[in-house]
């Protein structure tokens, strides 16, 4: 393993530069949900 010092404990819990981690995870999961909904709508509309 590398010889550099391990990151400080606070870095492990550092907040993201925008939103919060929970907010970002919800954003990614929500985008997936919206995409699946859109794809279902396209499948039904153009079958």
């Amino acid at each position, binding site marked *: 393993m590398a010889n550099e010092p391990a990151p400080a404990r606070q*870095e492990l819990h550092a907040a*993201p530069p925008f939103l919060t981690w929970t907010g*970002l995870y919800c954003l990614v*999961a929500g985008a*997936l949900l919206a995409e699946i909904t859109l794809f279902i709508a*396209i499948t039904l*509309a*153009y079958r």
Partner: protein
Amino acid sequence: MSSLDWLVLFSTLGAIVAYGVWKTRGQQDMASYLRGGYQDKWHTIGLSVMATQASAVTFLSTPGQAYQDGMGFVQFYFGLPLAMIVLSIAFIPRYFRLQVYTAYEFLESRFDRKTRQLAAFLFLLLRGLSAGITIYAPAIILSSVLGWPLRLTCLCMGGLVIVYTVAGGTRAVSQTQKHQMVVMLGGMVVTFIVIVMRLPASVSLRNAFHIAGSLGKLNIIDLSADPSRRYTLWSGLLGGFFLAMAYFGTDQSQVQRYLAGRSITESRLGLLFNGLVKVPMQFLVLLVGVMVLVFYQFNLPPIFFNQPELARVYQTPHAAHAAALEREHQAAFARKRSEIERLDAALDRHDEKSIAAAEQAVRESEAVFASIRGEMKQVIATALPHPAIKDADYVFLSFVMRNLPRGIVGLLLAVIFCAAMSAVASELSALASTTVIDFYRRSLRQNASDAHYVRAARWFTAGWGVLALLFATFASLLDNLIQAVNILGSLFYGTVLGIFAVGFFLRRVQGTAVFFAALLSEALVLLLFLRTSVGFLWYNVVGCSAVMLISASVTRWPGFRKPRSPAACGMDTQRRTTP
């Protein structure tokens, strides 16, 4: 190709490679060469992760797949965003805390050396094979369509990659990939716009979607619970999740990308960016294929997209039959086009009855059209000694060469070359890192200087590159090889992920138990592969779950259990200093 296309192609590739080499000049230590000096920001990591996954085959084959089978393949990526979230929460902090160069170092810290080197060996085997395929698969298509010699095409792509990967290591890979990914995304957006603009003026985008739907190509979501169906919503979400966990969490070619992050925050953001952008990007690539199909409803497509293969038929006694089929194909196209124009007109009038009648006529004429194409494939299969009758991979490049304007052709070829080079560069860099860190430094030369290991890493990068080139240059069983590599990957990924998952989440399980569980689980996956028709995405779920369940169960048996002590409870308290 016009001189403008050549200019666009070579200036794009040259500028990206030159920038990568210039940006990473003068690197001396291992942290710089193998981990990129911890300098990458989230957008570099995100684009680099995407570029590593997107090989040239993604841009050559995916539109062709949509052209022939519709857009259901996008479901394959549904598990990816969820995997990015879990990796950000569970994997990245632990890798960073241990300051590892490779993912497999974690396994020795958590279990033992044999588990680490087993996983590293499996990676070298699978990735070593696929590096050759990553060069060879696009080279055979490009050489066929462009008329270049196959070996020269392999050498051009592979040689350029070896030069900048050896020179700049991981950081050169990330820096070039960032720009390569921008070219790839930009190229596909431009292509989509150009195709839509080249449709007849009367055909709106909405009507284009309707025509594609009438031909059964907008069947994006499949809710079937049949496990033998390859791409469904459920296999995409669950199987795709496990596959993405294995690929992004345990495959060094991906782990190396986010280990180069400036901080944990940057690495996490990079993966989340990938989770946000990947599905729309694949949707766009597939949609380009569907729009090519719509374009070919108004413009005569080739009867067979691998034109050099078709030309060989005309050198045989079957030439007359082929020519007759081509004439029949043209007549069938004229009939189909008139039905499509009727449908387009009915759509503009919003006349539901006429739309339904026109759709039925379109489907019937499409069936006739497809049967003529099928007959031509049979002629090719009969006429040629080693026929390549699958032409889906040639659809997109054939379309680009025949129909896109000057300059855009060069840009699209740059996209394909960028995709091939970015994927190969990651693979070579990861293969070299794993060889140096998990085998050379661990078992052969434990206490050499940083400079020595950097030199060794350069040699191993060049060595793996030459090996991949040799494999690509002399490979001649394309279909079988690609299939073999894909099957090998899916057979082992689930088990490897299971070993990591036990390491992360089942803290009482020790090395011997997980090793035993991995062997049993692998046997189970092989049994599924040999004796059932279960889709390959499910192998990842079964392999990973079996390792976790079996190792947790056997840990209760005497001989697999160790007394509970801080040292036996996992990596957080077990700070060994493995070399």
